[in-house]
């Protein structure tokens, strides 16, 4: 392993933003393979994800890691002539904040953690009508649908979305997980979802479990 590679991974994982971005720039200027460099970033992100799971890192670290990754990607991607071998996806998850709710922080953390864990995530954004979930399920054939919501009004939107997925004849094809500030087992039963989670790690383990099944 080259020194630069180890230093880059460490700088990202230790939240040394300036050092990470400067080093990546120096490496690319010196002709370092941009595809390999992005691979190192992915390795660093796995460490960040692990530390988040272990309760060592929290939201601020995920935000900063995301910033470092996008700054380095912006430098590396224009230098890539042909796409390298892509890592096999662990599975596909469609995620979105349900109709009527604009909150996206929880959804974004779950997306981040699922991507680190090799899932392909289709993020439909916020205030997503049930029909958009249905259209996206038909297009992407995911194993899992994640419904996010922070407000209590989201309970009804989640329920309506699950019912609409059933009415469209797609309920048997997907597992549905819900998450957000106020969900619990009672809300899960109410909405007809398969499971609920209070944090991003639960979402990752549910998806792994369901995809393996």
């Amino acid at each position, binding site marked *: 392993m080259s020194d630069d590679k180890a230093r880059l991974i460490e700088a990202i994982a230790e*939240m040394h*933003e300036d050092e990470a971005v400067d080093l990546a720039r120096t490496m690319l200027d010196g002709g370092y393979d941009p595809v390999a460099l992005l691979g190192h970033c992915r390795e660093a992100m796995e460490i960040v994800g692990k530390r988040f799971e272990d309760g*060592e*890192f*929290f*939201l*601020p670290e995920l*935000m*900063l890691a995301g*910033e470092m990754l996008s700054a380095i990607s912006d430098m590396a991607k224009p230098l890539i002539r042909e796409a390298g071998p892509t890592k096999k996806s662990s599975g596909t998850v469609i995620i979105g904040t349900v109709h*009527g*709710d*604009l*909150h996206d*922080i929880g959804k974004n953390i779950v997306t981040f953690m699922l991507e680190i864990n090799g899932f392909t995530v289709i993020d439909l954004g916020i205030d997503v009508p049930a029909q958009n979930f249905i259209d996206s399920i038909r297009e992407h054939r995911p194993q899992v649908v994640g419904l996010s919501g922070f*407000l*209590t*009004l989201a*309970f*009804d939107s989640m329920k309506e979305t699950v019912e609409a997925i059933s009415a469209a004849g797609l309920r048997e094809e997907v597992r549905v997980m819900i998450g957000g*500030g*106020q*969900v*619990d087992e*009672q*809300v899960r*039963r*109410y909405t007809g979802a398969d499971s609920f989670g*209070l*944090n991003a790690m639960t979402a990752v383990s549910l998806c792994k479990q369901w995809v393996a099944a």
Partner: protein
Amino acid sequence: MSAENNSPAALYAEREARVRDAIELREPDRVPIFLYSTFWQALDAGMTCEQAMYDYDRLGEAARRSVLELEPDAYVLPHFMLALGPTMEIMDYRQLQWPGHNGVDPNVSFQYLDKEYMKADEYDDYLLDPTGFYLKKYLPRVAGVYEAFRKLPDFPGLFYTRVVHSTAAYDDPDVRQAFETLARAGAEMRTMLGKAMALAKELAESGFPLAISASGGAPFDLLADYLRGSKGAMLDMFRNKDKLLAAMDKAAQFIPRAMIDSASRSPCKTVFIPLHWGLDGFMSPEQFETFFWPSLRKVVMTLIEAGLTPCLLWEGDCTSRLEVIRDVPPGKCIYFFERTDMFKAKEVLGDVVCLRGNVPASMMTTGTPDEVRDYCKKLIDVCGDGGGFIMDCGIGIPDESKRENVLAMFETTREYGVYR
């Protein structure tokens, strides 16, 4: 009980004493219960969310009806969060998306728009001259009416003849227009506040005290919610740590100053501080003790020194923070918990703060009255033991709560909550 003891004045005194006993960690005659809702009272009265934000009289009627029916020991008037539609329209307020405005469904709650309202490179401006920064940069971004304030003079640069010359700015057509529009917004706000205060007076005469007289926030939340945006503030914890801390230090002085001023005009001495970004999972224990708690504690202590009772609403789950937030003088604060383990909170904080909460939102909206009764009884048994507890839902009554569940919470508290 004699007739005299049932007079509204006697009931008012009785309720006030019950709440004061709970706050000061003595055992009252029974567990007090607060009535605090955002849209529930209006929706229960058959109004839409849009009507609640625009129709002062109907909102007042809904609030009156619920107070008289539920007979809380203290209540929050919904006007201060809801009845802002007309004024926000006049001033072109831009930080909120609300029902009936810009195509938003009349039946949904308002939502705050989390954005970067102050850029990272503007900390120096803010730290040098916060008022100037507000007038010429921040306010023009958050409300259209203030756009013309960009043309106002640079106040700290005024002296001697410059004080005289600078008057020319006020003759600018946009500035004139802005002041006229603000006066219209002010008249609208005074109408609303006048109706709200008249209702509070009427309800006081019927025996019901107010639960809060002013609200504020944590310095970190002020920066994260209203200035830098949540993402900006979290990145600043690494990129601009010293400036973030310096700005929070300023905010820790402004926040209580404004709250003390508002509370001075009310008979109620409890002030409200909802908290957003300090919960478990959002920041580490170390970050909490660096960025969240010290400046919040400063606000709390300033309020206590001014003779006020801070009621801190700890949103989400703050179970891991309990030991740290114990550090306040006993009998001076209410800690209002949403999803924190209330029973653990009683153990850790029971001899220091009065607990309030935390009937779950999911139970109120999708559960049964029996479930609500059982949960309330458990809260009364454990958290109410020896006093120091006020019944409420996690963040007040959720908008979609079933009426029978709200009735169950109030009945159980009145009947089962009696200390014997």
